[in-house]
């Protein structure tokens, strides 16, 4: 090994990475898994990195390269990405050999700059350390000889044997191979380049990662000899919400783009946590100097991206790769869009073939590529168009309107912009509902023959015996219960919509779940049971009618899926009325309130904590309180102190306090707030106190477009409805009450005028 004369690794600066390691978000576990392969005592040698489309697999591998380089351990990182610019298998192999040797030498010399330099063969030989000189020289000479002999197959195999030859000389190269899905397009010399790469690395004896689009990679490895030797597979998906939020924040901070929590969350939800789309939008914001501080700005920029920005170029280039001929591409856009709009988006393969009107071989190629890029799913004789990506759907819609409908560009921009703006609150509301859902599926998955108090499944019983108890007292009472339910062992749980898609018409996917299991964990026909659980949205006790409707719906699911023995379980936030409970008992169904569910969850597993954020403004009294635990009292006492400063009368102070309490309760009860916080501002003016209460989350229906007016105009005191009085009270107690428009959630402004006596 040559002496390490100088260490030129850049001290934290990226080597091959495009971003600094500290700016690289998430993927910690995945990165650790790759790094483990480099350990001397690693059990696994190879890893198949199965990537969803556009989730940043290349940057991930480059970060792994940089990390391995800096660690300067035994493993020598080599990063190579297949590239269509190489055009042929031979050129690709040649490029690989050049890259391999250059990065090998760069590592040996611990000179990061060499990894990226453009070196000629003589340069390379000159820089090669003496210990490696012999095998490198032999390899370079053999390559030159085979190149001259015009034996492409032998040349390719020789180039790809570089890792094995290095390993034979005592080195430990660690090859990170990227973009394997492109290998098919570089095939030549009657061999499959992808399979050759896979085989060469498997035989190299050193650690390696084969990365590519997930739908392609498994097929490829299967085709390679000894493909089943792969010890591990790693799936790279979109970022989690939390990681994606962090990514947006870091990019915005780095590029000095103004952003707020609401727009950040919209970007994350709309982009589905996809790092490529997120970075494209943030790049565009930086280039165009657009502040991402309102939904309008975000969506304008987003539509620009769809029409002609990075996102547009990303999808356009893939479509060009899938269907190089413009006419076929146009037909493809039509078929893709129209199929995605049809019910279920599923059509027989013959229908697609007829509509595209192309040769069978070409059709197979196109369909296969659509499948690999996940623009469609090809399964037996059916093709299902579309995927969950809003961005792809929007892009496709744009292209369809421009190219098929031949609409003027301005009309398309205006239309798509309006659509995305109208959709934004729904996107966020859907997100909040998903976040606020009780997590029935996850809870059911954890059922494993535990014994829990029966009262947790019988709201009437719980209401009679436990309601209103202090937490300690309640725990003790539940502990003392002798009537216990033994939960089944659940072996599989999924959303009800996965079993029975029509249920999605009546409830969100995450609010209804099906769990297959066995009573007492005994795997027999007699013990087989299916739990079907649904969460009913209601802020009051659910009545008999609604309960009956839900029982019937869930039984319909059971019949449609041929479930023999089922247990229905309904969950409602405030439980069930007496007659609804009677019905549940008659049908031997369970009914729980949210409180019961939480107690059950506590008993089965630990609950998760809510995240906290805070915003500030320097020129006003501001206060942020968490929802719940009577924190509205803290707000009330604070506003009292503030009101006293301008000599409000005691009665008026009490009215302000009560109004503020009601506003806080409204925020807590209705918003499905993601941060569970209430933001308050108190502004004192010479003749008035203005109190603003805001919270993020869903805007209650009753507040929409009415500026908070009671929809039916009833005098609530005459109403038999015993809830929903808050807004009426606030209006009675304060002089002016107004809902202010905000991008996300609600903001209530209440004013009380000073009347000195």
């Amino acid at each position, binding site marked *: 090994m040559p002496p390490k004369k100088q260490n030129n690794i850049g001290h934290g600066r990226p080597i091959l990475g495009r971003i600094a390691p500290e700016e690289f978000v998430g993927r910690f576990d995945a990165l650790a898994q790759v790094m483990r392969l480099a350990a001397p005592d690693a059990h696994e040698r190879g890893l198949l990195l199965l990537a969803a489309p556009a989730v940043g697999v290349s940057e991930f591998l480059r970060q792994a390269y940089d990390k391995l380089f800096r660690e300067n351990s035994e493993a020598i990182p080599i990063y190579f990405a297949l590239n269509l610019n190489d055009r042929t298998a031979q050129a690709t192999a040649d490029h690989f050999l050049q890259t391999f040797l250059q990065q090998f030498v760069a590592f040996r010399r611990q000179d990061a700059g060499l990894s990226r330099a453009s070196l000629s063969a003589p340069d390379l030989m000159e820089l090669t350390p003496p210990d490696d000189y012999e095998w490198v020289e032999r390899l370079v000479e053999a390559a030159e000889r085979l190149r001259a002999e015009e034996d492409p197959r032998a040349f390719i195999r020789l180039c790809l044997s570089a890792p094995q030859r290095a390993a034979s000389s005592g080195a430990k190269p660690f090859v990170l191979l990227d973009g394997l899905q492109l290998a098919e397009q570089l095939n030549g010399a009657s061999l499959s380049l992808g399979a050759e790469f896979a085989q060469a690395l498997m035989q190299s004896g050193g650690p390696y990662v084969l990365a590519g689009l997930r739908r392609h990679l498994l097929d490829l490895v299967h085709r390679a000899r000894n493909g089943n030797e792969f010890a591990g597979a790693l799936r790279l998906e979109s970022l989690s919400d939390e990681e994606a939020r962090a990514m947006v924040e870091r990019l915005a901070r780095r590029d000095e783009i103004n952003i707020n929590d609401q727009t950040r969350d919209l970007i994350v939800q709309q982009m589905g946590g996809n790092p490529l789309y997120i970075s494209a939008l943030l790049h565009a914001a930086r280039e165009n100097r657009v502040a991402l501080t309102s939904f309008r700005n975000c969506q304008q920029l987003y539509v620009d991206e769809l029409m002609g920005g990075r996102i547009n170029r990303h999808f356009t280039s893939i479509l060009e790769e899938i269907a190089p001929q413009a006419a076929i591409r146009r037909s493809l856009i039509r078929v893709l869009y129209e199929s995605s709009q049809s019910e279920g988006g599923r059509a027989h393969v013959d229908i697609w073939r007829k509509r595209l009107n192309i040769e069978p071989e070409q059709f197979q190629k196109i369909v296969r590529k659509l499948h690999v890029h996940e623009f469609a799913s090809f399964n037996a004789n059916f093709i299902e168009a579309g995927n969950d990506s809003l961005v792809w759907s929007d892009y496709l819609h744009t292209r369809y309107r421009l190219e098929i409908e031949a609409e003027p560009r301005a009309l398309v921009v205006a239309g798509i912009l309006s659509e995305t703006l109208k959709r934004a609150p729904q996107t966020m509301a859907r997100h909040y509902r998903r976040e606020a859902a009780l997590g029935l599926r996850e809870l059911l998955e954890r059922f494993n023959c535990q014994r829990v108090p029966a009262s947790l499944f019988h709201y009437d019983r719980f209401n009679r015996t436990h*309601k*209103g*108890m*202090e937490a300690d*007292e309640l725990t003790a009472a539940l502990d003392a219960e002798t009537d216990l339910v033994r939960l089944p062992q659940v072996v599989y749980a999924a959303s009800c919509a996965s079993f029975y898609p029509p249920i999605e018409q009546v409830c969100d996917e995450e609010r209804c779940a099906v769990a297959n299991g066995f009573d007492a964990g005994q795997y027999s026909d007699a013990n087989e049971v299916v739990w079907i659980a649904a969460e009913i949205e209601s802020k009051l006790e659910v009545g008999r009618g609604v309960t009956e409707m839900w029982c019937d719906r869930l039984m319909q699911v059971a019949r449609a899926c041929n479930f023999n023995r089922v247990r229905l379980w309904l969950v409602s936030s405030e439980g069930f009325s007496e007659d609804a409970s009677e019905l549940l008992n008659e049908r031997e169904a369970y009914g729980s309130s949210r409180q019961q569910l939480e107690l059950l969850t506590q008993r089965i597993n630990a609950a998760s904590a809510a995240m906290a954020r805070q915003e500030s403004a320097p020129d006003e009294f501001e206060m942020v309180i968490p929802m719940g635990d*009577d924190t*509205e*009292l803290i707000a*009330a006492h604070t506003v009292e102190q503030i009101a006293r400063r301008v000599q409000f009368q005691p*009665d008026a102070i*009490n*009215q302000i*306090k*009560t109004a503020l*309490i*009601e506003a806080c*309760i409204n925020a807590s009860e209705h918003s499905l707030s993601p941060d569970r916080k209430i933001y308050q501002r108190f502004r004192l003016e010479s003749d008035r106190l203005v109190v603003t209460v805001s919270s993020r989350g869903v805007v209650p229906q009753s507040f929409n477009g009415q500026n908070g007016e009671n929809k039916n105009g009833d005098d*609530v*005191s*005459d109403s038999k409805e*015993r*809830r929903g*009085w*808050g807004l*009426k*009270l606030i209006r*009675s107690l304060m002089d002016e009450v107004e809902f202010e428009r905000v991008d996300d959630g609600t903001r209530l402004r209440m004013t009380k005028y000073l009347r000195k006596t």
Partner: protein
Amino acid sequence: MAELVTGTTVHSRSVGDMAIVYAGDYLNKLSGERIERECRRQLEAGCRALIINFRETELVNSIGVSILLGVIDAAERTGAQLIFSDVNNQTVQLFEMLGLTRHVALAKDEQEALATLNEFASPQRAAGH
């Protein structure tokens, strides 16, 4: 006159076949449910009249009021009398706004409430004998 304390935090005492339940400083969902629970317990135990004393109550929210309506219903179902005593002006205003005062009598203080209930009960007792 027997005096007792029941429940964990809701104080109450019995006066003959009447019961006085003391509300806390803030009447909200949780404290309201505690009062409701105690009132129902008293009614199930045969209590003929209930007084809810609000002398400690500084603030009441709308959920607390809705629970009080439940107590009023429960009392009506069992034929028991119900009086709210020691209610501060602010809370009276709130009860009026939400229509509670149509269904329940208010008394200045506990003594007045007891006197009213005794007055109301006397002819019935006499008739019962």
